[in-house]
């Protein structure tokens, strides 16, 4: 009896094993042999600078794809007045976007401009082979090298320079993205953009003007002065913002060049409908923030339902508001109140309950309190506290603002021209375009929930700091501004 039982169990196990290894599973296990895809014809690759991407591959057959890329070491602007020598693939940071399909044979020619100082190479994460092509592409200034590779796996991949010291080459901007589309291409969308985050390490602190050199010590300590999209502060804000129309689908190819920091990529006011996790084949849906490792990428898409400015950030949020990792997607079109109402009603909040309350009549005559005007020094001191609590995050410690996002208060022509207008903005907020010191800003300042006394203090502090016109703003004056 006992023996019988064991035999039955063995039989059952055998059946399970046989059925467990069905045809479907075999298909999954057997890797599709992309190497066997036959190429038909030759085509020169279209390369684009960020934030643009080449035309979709669609369902074209696999081809021999010729990619010509030039390395240029050149001076650029990290932020207003901050110069930096970038090392670039194709003249931009990140480098030119390369778009291929699975099975393409990419013939890659890397040219090192004769004026350059250093040898460089390229490691493409889309390459299956030693060094990702780095060893075959090591090239001295004034020379070029050609190698080829077959794209075996669909996905979005980072490429970067891998010449010693690797970290320094990457930190100077030598990275970009190569997309390998699957058979038949990616599902069509209305708009596609190329965004890549990078961290930069400068000899001076964030905002320090002049030509900044690379700081190896800060890089080793991962103490970034700038964390930016597309190579510089403001590459995706103001006039450089990416755009779409209400009702369109938007796909973002987002990379992270590093060298050090992982990105918590987020679009304020949007939810990603689809995320190709880590740029691969796993699809996630309804995602708020997606993590992009240094040397990794992701593809996200979403439909824009309502108009407005949507802010792209690294949600490690000090990087966004203090180090530059801030971009904008401007969406035009009809409001859709069902999806988003905007402000419906403004009212008074009464913690004690909603019933109508009235002051006893006789009290009214007594309570016209006279506000004692403080000394100028006291106002400045109190105003500074208000400033650090309320205004500092956007307008920054020395009133310098954030380029292309928040206007400066220091030596501000707009501020100094009209005190009552400035008081009004603090009281009631301000939306829409203004020009400050010759630069256009288009952002939102909300009405500040502070008392008239506090407004008088903070305005006096601002007017008496950073080269402004030293107006002493009285509480009376604040009261008069409606």
């Amino acid at each position: 009896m006992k023996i019988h039982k064991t035999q039955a169990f063995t039989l059952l196990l055998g059946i399970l094993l046989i059925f467990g290894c069905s045809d479907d599973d075999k298909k999954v296990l057997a890797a599709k042999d992309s190497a066997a895809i036959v190429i038909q014809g030759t085509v020169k690759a279209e390369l684009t600078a960020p934030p643009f991407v080449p035309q979709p591959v669609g369902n074209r057959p696999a081809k021999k794809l010729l990619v010509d890329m030039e390395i240029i070491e050149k001076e650029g602007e990290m932020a207003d007045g901050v110069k930096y020598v970038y090392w670039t693939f194709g003249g931009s940071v990140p480098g030119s976007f390369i778009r291929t399909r699975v099975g393409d044979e990419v013939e890659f020619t890397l040219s090192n401009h004769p004026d350059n100082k250093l040898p460089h190479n390229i490691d493409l994460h889309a390459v299956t082979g030693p060094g990702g092509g780095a060893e075959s592409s090591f090239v001295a200034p004034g020379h070029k090298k050609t190698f080829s590779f077959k794209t075996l796996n669909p996905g979005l991949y980072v490429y970067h320079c891998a010449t010693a010291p690797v970290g320094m080459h990457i930190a100077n901007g030598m990275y970009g993205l190569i997309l390998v589309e699957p058979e038949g291409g990616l599902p069509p969308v209305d708009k596609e953009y190329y965004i890549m985050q990078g961290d930069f390490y400068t000899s001076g602190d964030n905002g320090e003007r002049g030509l900044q050199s690379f700081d190896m010590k800060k890089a080793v300590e991962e103490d970034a002065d700038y964390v930016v999209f597309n190579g510089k502060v403001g590459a995706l804000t103001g006039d450089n913002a990416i755009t779409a129309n209400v009702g369109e689908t938007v796909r973002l190819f987002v990379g992270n060049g590093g060298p050090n920091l992982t990105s918590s990529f987020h679009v304020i006011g949007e939810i990603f409908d689809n995320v190709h996790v880590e740029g691969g084949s796993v699809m996630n849906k309804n995602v708020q923030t997606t993590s992009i490792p240094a040397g990794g990428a992701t593809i996200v898409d979403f439909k824009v339902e309502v108009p407005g400015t949507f802010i792209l950030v690294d949600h490690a949020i000090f990087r966004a508001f203090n180090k530059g990792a801030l971009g904008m997607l401007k969406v035009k079109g009809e409001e859709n109140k069902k999806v988003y109402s905007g402000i419906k009603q403004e009212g008074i909040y009464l913690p004690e309950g909603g019933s109508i309350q009235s002051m006893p009549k006789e009290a009214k005559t007594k309570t016209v309190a006279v506000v004692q005007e403080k000394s100028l020094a006291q106002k400045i001191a109190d105003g500074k506290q208000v400033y650090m609590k309320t205004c500092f995050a956007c307008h920054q410690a020395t009133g310098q603002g954030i380029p292309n996002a928040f206007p400066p208060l220091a030596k501000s022509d707009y501020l100094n021209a009209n005190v009552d207008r400035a008081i009004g903005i603090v009281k009631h907020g301000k939306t829409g375009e203004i020009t400050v010191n010759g630069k256009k800003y288009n952002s939102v300042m909300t009405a500040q929930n502070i008392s008239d006394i506090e407004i008088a203090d903070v305005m006096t502090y601002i007017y008496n700091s950073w080269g402004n016109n030293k107006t002493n703003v009285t509480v009376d004056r604040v009261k008069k501004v409606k």
Partner: protein
Amino acid sequence: MKTILRLTICLFVLLNSSLVNCQSKMVPIKGGEYTPLYGREGVKVQVADFLMDVYPVTNDDFLKFVKENPTWRKSKVIRLFADERYLIDWINDTQLGPEQQLNSPITNVSWFAAKNYCEIQGKRLPTVDEWEYVAMSNETVADARSLENYNKYILSWYEKPKTFDNVVGSTFKNYWKVYDMHGLVWEWTSDFNSVLITGESRNDVDKNSELFCGSAAINATDLMNYAAFMRYAIRGSLKAKYTMKNLGFRCVKDIK
């Protein structure tokens, strides 16, 4: 003014009379032991006494050289010995380009041309060890490699574009009274390919345990390695017939 300076240098050399030509002044380098970047820690390399050019060879020097040695003119040079970019900025065989200055370093010359230039002067190209030995000094000390400022200076040069347009002597005079070892142009050495850094620097780390690269990758805080790696990387990317806008040379001589 420049002519006067040249004459003065010339006279000075003649007065010293230990040196034959007045094309470039040489200074004695006292040899010694040092640990090169690519050596194993604790294993020192001996460098014998020698003389070294104070400045890199200039456009002017090389102009005279090709006038006297027509095989090295840009129209005559054999392709095996110099690639298509050889003296590319020169207007013709004996005229510099409009942007070029006589006392800027000669660049866009191959290793073969540089080697022959030195030989004709009765000199030779320095070895990597000789070059590195002299280059590890700053203004005041013979081995400044552990000093942060020294390494910062070199690293910042890598980020300054077009320094090849500057004139010789525009950087600092080092401990040995030699100018422009850092900050002007790269320089050919006789055995530039003896330390092989392939294009795949991370692979070098893996394979060649004799390179400091390995420890540098682990202990990347070492600025000395970073500054010097770039030199080894550039040497590793070269072949003897290559020419580069950022690459010149100077000569040395044995002390008999």
